[in-house]
């Protein structure tokens, strides 16, 4: 399975600003998952998107799956210091595998 490309690699924001990370694929995805890894921690599953054009919300986090199912985004409204960490998207890579993007590292200035 092909890797998914995540941009940006790093993002530094002031607390209260919004943040968006993007995940792009050259091929159509069956679904896309998002994980968050706090500094010094392990990745934790956030959400899975399956349907074309799907939008899901978790409090201040909004996840979108593109109409063509080739891209996805995670948007955080009014960031807080608790949002600090690295956000990964992941796609199914065939044969029971999950292939991760390289992640977007978010830092938040209080």
């Amino acid at each position: 399975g092909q890797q998914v490309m995540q941009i940006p690699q790093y993002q530094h924001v002031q607390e209260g600003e919004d943040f968006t990370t993007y995940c792009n694929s050259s091929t159509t995805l069956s679904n896309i998952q998002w994980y968050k890894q706090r500094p010094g921690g392990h990745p934790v599953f956030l959400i899975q998107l399956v349907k074309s054009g799907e939008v899901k919300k978790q409090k201040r986090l909004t996840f979108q799956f593109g109409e063509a199912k080739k891209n996805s985004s995670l948007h955080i409204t009014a960031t807080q210091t608790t949002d600090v960490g690295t956000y990964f998207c992941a796609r199914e890579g065939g044969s029971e595998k999950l292939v991760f993007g390289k992640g977007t590292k978010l830092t938040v200035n209080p």
Partner: protein
Amino acid sequence: DAGITQSPRHKVTETGTPVTLRCHQTENHRYMYWYRQDPGHGLRLIHYSYGVKDTDKGEVSDGYSVSRSKTEDFLLTLESATSSQTSVYFCAISEYGGSSGANVLTFGAGSRLTVL
């Protein structure tokens, strides 16, 4: 978090020595995975298992071997460690495989390996 533990959590070893990392789960999940995480590379799959004695290679399997003799244990072995294998290693488990569309991973806390 789910019952998944990795050991050791930290290890320093010398080039050329064998190293075994252990992943133990109490969830009775069928699928188990070993990833390595390095700056700028994200999470890369080393090997995975889809059942007892059933394993397959990931994208960075060279220099690594695995074994799964019981559902609950998945061992990752570096036969002769090299400095390029200095990394943080994460084990993950999943109840369902990739073909199910519900392949959500639960990760262990990680094992930090330093090869001098």
